[in-house]
């Protein structure tokens, strides 16, 4: 580049670097005036434009640049960003491929082409590029790129079953063609082992592994060692592994739990590896093995003492497996081991979780265990406090249903409170960044009160739980576990604002939003005050969705980078990570919630309908991964009870079936309300489409699939949601034909789009060429048909509103929680909004006149009046309820419920807002 030109271009880059996109455009225009054909400047301008959201203008420039078939590095890099911004990833690949074809000697272009294919997961093409590069540049690294691309292609869901072994065999052949053996570095060695494992060539793998270098690699590389274990297991070399593990445990003092598992597997191999009942001889041999293994574990436990808990845990596992295989063991063996473990590690926080799998005691064993624990309570030092916490948790775990009466649970709650308050003395001097040692007692109080609420149905117990936990949370500001319990309890009490406060204080961010946002955003539309104009929950959805954007822009880049650093062992994990986030269930549940809130919050116009229609259709065919983390919620409920998580879910958590049902509901409604049909949509849409799904069930036309109910969906819905689902089906069946008749023809729409585009500076859209010769006759012919005869509304529609009213009346006269009432009201409201959405097209008088829809309009009006009067009634009742709770008496009742720890909070707030909300949506 000449210095003069460089001087002109530098300011453009500077502006782009500092995100001053407007001045970047100006700087580009200045250069383009003198050099209208400067491709680099055009590309940079397109980049600035796409960042300014001026998609159409950017699109035109980008196409101009691509038509020039650029090969210059600067242009290619700029274009890569432009096309990414436009969502045209396949064009990036094509661009680099074209460039590389022109300069096959250019190694850098080859690499870029390979990476472009890697980023979109186009393994077949990636493999071909890498093979070509290996031939050209004779570098083994490219050989391994091509090998691993073949492996990934074999792993790809889209690859036909029969082709997979062919690809793997090809990869194996390529490995032997390399200049250096695979153990040149651990990651290449890993690839080799992986291929042999997939091809079930375990003996060949074992030969490699038993080689001196192979052994050396496995000693230092955890990933190679992992695949080695796997292969040995598949090969059936369990006993051999066990022998090695024994040596490692005893001589090398290896405390990797996997070694202990290897030895355990080997011990029971003769019984566990066959389905035949074991002969007496076999049983005797295994019993002998058990004795030997017990000696090894005991020795490890003695050597380690307090330093490591593996030995003692392994002994417990050994006894458990002995028992489960029906081999003789002393009935008290497991209990003795557990006591032994407790004596050593009882003052560590991990004790409870460690022991849990081994404690299902009954009868006499249980009695002895209980009295053992009871003798271990003491509260003298922080260490004994932790031990007492374990004692209380372990005792609670084994409570029987007979011991879970309201009186006894109440006594327990009171005892937990007492020891909690006592225990606070050990944390008085801790800085507020530390956890209070007694926190878990407060968590136990929460558990006891929730269990009391389950036993009695009395809401006051939930209030007591909330009060105690609020107190504990103030004492231990960093305890996220206390906050987790509070979030759940506040939701049950109908106080989502308080739940959200605690959620925010947990500082959930980045990838955690995928696994934890369900805490606050499951059925968020039910909690949201969006109809009132409060967009707190909507913005929470937007924030939690950020991670998916960064996943789609960043992760693929790291897959490419792992190729360049030859870290093959990481690539499969990265791909899985990308896929799990990209197709996360929570992501799309959140999307649906956002749509539900938008519909309640915004005017129902074409902008909303068309955009959401397209976006929902995009996600309709995804195969989802459920990454939601429910395990993080503490659980210390007795084993005969459901977990705390299950007890405190306001409704069954929405799953794939729920998602599918709601996607269908909204796609159907939007399709009917929208003027976009598939042909129009296809022409107006910019960027790549989702990859077509391979599922045969998905090959049916979309329209047919949308009206098909599946059992999986029904199972996931609450009772009210089931009614709602039926209602929406009836509604769209009824109004669908009128929509189809009145909807303007595609040609008219495209012409409209072209016109509005012509008004803007710039050039007409590419798609307009197609629009111009659109099938105008098609549009007119439609008007020649008679309008569909007006039918009465199906019975189901008014009945739905009546049903919801009686549901509401029944629930309010019982001892229902606020959250249950809210669910009924929110579902009724949603039905009303969908009704509005589906009838908005028929509102104008001109339409009614033109199509003789007078009678139809009357039916709509009747239904609207009916629905809104029912909603009005509900809102009046809710408002009254809100006022009752908000009175001094109501507050006093709450304070009384929490008399153990005086702490009032703002539960009543929500009732007030519900009242306002109810008023709003009836207007």
């Amino acid at each position, binding site marked *: 580049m000449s210095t003069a030109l460089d001087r002109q271009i530098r300011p453009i880059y500077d502006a782009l670097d500092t995100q001053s996109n407007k001045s970047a455009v100006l700087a580009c225009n200045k250069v383009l005036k003198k050099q209208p054909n400067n491709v680099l400047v055009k590309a940079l301008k397109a980049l600035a434009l796409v960042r300014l959201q001026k998609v159409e203008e950017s699109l035109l420039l980008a196409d101009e640049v691509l038509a020039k078939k650029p090969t210059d590095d600067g242009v290619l890099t700029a274009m890569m960003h432009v096309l990414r911004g436009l969502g045209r990833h396949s064009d990036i690949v094509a661009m680099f491929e074209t460039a590389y074809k022109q300069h096959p000697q250019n190694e850098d272009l080859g690499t870029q082409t390979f990476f472009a294919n890697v980023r979109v997961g186009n393994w077949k093409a990636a493999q071909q590029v890498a093979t070509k590069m290996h031939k050209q540049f004779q570098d083994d690294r490219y050989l391994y790129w091509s090998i691993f691309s073949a492996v990934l292609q074999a792993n790809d869901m889209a690859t036909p079953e029969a082709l997979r072994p062919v690809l793997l065999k090809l990869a194996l052949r390529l490995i032997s063609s390399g200049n250096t053996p695979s153990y040149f570095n651990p990651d290449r060695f890993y690839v080799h082992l992986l291929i042999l494992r997939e091809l079930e060539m375990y003996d060949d793998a074992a030969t490699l592994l038993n080689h001196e270098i192979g052994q050396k690699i496995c000693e*230092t590389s955890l990933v190679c060692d992992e695949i080695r274990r796997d292969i040995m297991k598949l090969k059936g070399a369990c006993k051999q592994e066990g022998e090695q593990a024994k040596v490692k445990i005893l001589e090398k003092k290896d405390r990797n739990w996997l070694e202990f598992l290897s030895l355990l597997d080997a011990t029971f191999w003769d019984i566990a590896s066959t389905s035949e009942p074991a002969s007496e001889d076999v049983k005797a041999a295994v019993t002998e093995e058990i004795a030997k293994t017990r000696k090894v574990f005991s020795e490890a436990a003695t050597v380690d003492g307090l330093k490591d808990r593996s030995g003692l845990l392994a002994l417990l596992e050994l006894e458990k497996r002995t028992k489960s295989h029906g081999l003789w063991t002393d009935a008290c063996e497991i209990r003795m081991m557990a006591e032994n473990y407790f004596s050593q590690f009882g003052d560590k926080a*991990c004790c409870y*979780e*460690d022991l849990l799998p081994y404690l299902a005691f009954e009868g006499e064993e249980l009695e002895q265990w209980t009295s053992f624990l009871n003798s271990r309570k003491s509260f003298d030092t922080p260490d004994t406090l932790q031990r007492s916490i374990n004692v209380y948790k372990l005792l609670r775990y084994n409570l029987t249903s007979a011991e879970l009466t309201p009186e006894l649970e109440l006594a327990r709650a009171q005892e937990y409170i007492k020891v909690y308050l006592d225990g606070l003395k050990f944390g008085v001097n801790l800085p507020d960044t530390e956890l209070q040692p007694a926190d878990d007692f407060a968590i136990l109080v929460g558990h006891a009160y929730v269990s009391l609420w389950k036993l009695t149905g009395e809401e006051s117990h939930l209030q007591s739980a909330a009060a105690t936990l609020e107190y504990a949370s103030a004492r231990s500001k*960093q305890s*996220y576990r206390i906050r987790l319990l509070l979030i759940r309890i506040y939701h049950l009490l109908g106080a989502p604002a308080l739940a959200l406060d605690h959620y925010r204080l*947990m500082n959930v961010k980045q*990838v*955690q939003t995928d696994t934890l946002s369900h805490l606050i955003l499951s059925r968020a539309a039910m909690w949201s005050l969006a109809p009132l104009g409060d967009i707190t929950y909507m913005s929470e959805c937007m924030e939690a969705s950020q991670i998916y954007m960064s996943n789609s822009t960043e992760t693929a880049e790291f897959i490419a980078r792992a190729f360049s650093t030859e*870290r093959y062992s990481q690539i499969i994990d990265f791909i899985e990570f990308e896929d799990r986030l990209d197709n996360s269930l929570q992501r799309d549940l959140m999307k649906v919630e956002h749509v539900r809130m938008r519909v309640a919050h915004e005017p129902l116009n074409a902008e909303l309908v068309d955009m959401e229609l397209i976006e929902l259709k995009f996600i309709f065919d995804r195969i989802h991964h459920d990454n939601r983390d429910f395990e993080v919620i503490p659980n210390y409920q007795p084993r005969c009870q459901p977990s705390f998580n299950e007890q405190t879910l306001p409704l069954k958590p929405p799953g794939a079936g729920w998602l599918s049902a709601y996607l269908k509901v909204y796609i159907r409604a939007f399709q009917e309300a929208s003027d976009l049909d598939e042909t129009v949509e296809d022409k107006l849409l910019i960027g790549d489409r989702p990859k077509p799904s391979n599922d045969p069930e998905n090959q049916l036309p979309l329209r047919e699939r949308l009206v098909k109910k599946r059992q999986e969906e029904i199972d996931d819905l609450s009772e009210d949601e089931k009614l709602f689902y039926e209602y929406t089906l009836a509604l769209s069946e009824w109004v669908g034909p009128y929509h189809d008749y009145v909807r303007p023809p595609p040609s008219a729409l495209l012409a409209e789009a072209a016109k509005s585009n012509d008004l803007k500076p710039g050039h007409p859209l590419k798609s307009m060429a197609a629009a111009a010769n659109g099938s105008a006759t098609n549009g007119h012919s439609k008007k020649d048909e008679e309008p569909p005869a007006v039918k009465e509304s199906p019975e189901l529609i008014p009945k739905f509103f009546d049903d919801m009213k009686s549901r509401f009346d029944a629930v309010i006269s019982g001892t229902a929680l606020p959250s249950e009432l809210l669910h009924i009201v929110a579902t009724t409201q949603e039905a009303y909004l969908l009704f509005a959405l589906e009838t908005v097209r028929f509102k104008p008088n001109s339409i009614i006149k033109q199509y003789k829809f007078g009678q139809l309009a009357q039916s709509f009006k009747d239904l609207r009046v009916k629905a809104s009067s029912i909603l009005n009634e509900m809102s009046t009742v809710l408002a009254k309820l809100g006022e009752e709770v908000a009175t001094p008496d109501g507050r006093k009742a709450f304070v009384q419920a929490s008399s153990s720890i005086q702490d009032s909070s703002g539960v009543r707030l929500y009732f007030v807002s519900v009242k306002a909300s109810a008023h709003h949506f009836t207007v």
Partner: protein
Amino acid sequence: MFKFNNINLDIWTETYGISFYLTYLSRWPDLCCVQEAPNGHMMGYVIGKAEGHGQDWHGHVTALTVAPEYRRLSLARKMMSLLEMVSDETYKGFFVDLYVRCTNSVAISMYEGLGYSVYRRVREYYGSLGLGRASKDEEDAFDMRKPLSRDPHRRSVRANGREFVVSAHDVS
């Protein structure tokens, strides 16, 4: 990353963006290690890298953390010794270093117990925890180091490191 909530919800553990974790995993996977309990829960993890030029070539502990319920089991000690071993044998570094908040006294005394000593104090290295207390100590970091076998004369450490103050701009 889908399973680390029990660890990362704790206040001393920062949750970074995707690119942070993937950078480390794509370059130094052998300096990253997770410890799992027998029930599959994550107990703790360590993330490290190798960096520096010449005599300054060293292993760096970027993050080391243990979930609250698995503390006081010497897990950190084990992960540190793994990282030291790999830094020493695979990467042939001269020393291992790490940064820690000046207020995180539990961690500092643990590192001292493992043979680390303060090399210098770095001003305003961390963001505030937002608790409105002695924010100076909170945002400053100690750079702590421990020499490896390639530095038998202990050139990489000094005795009075707490008094050497540098600003965050001077370190990378």
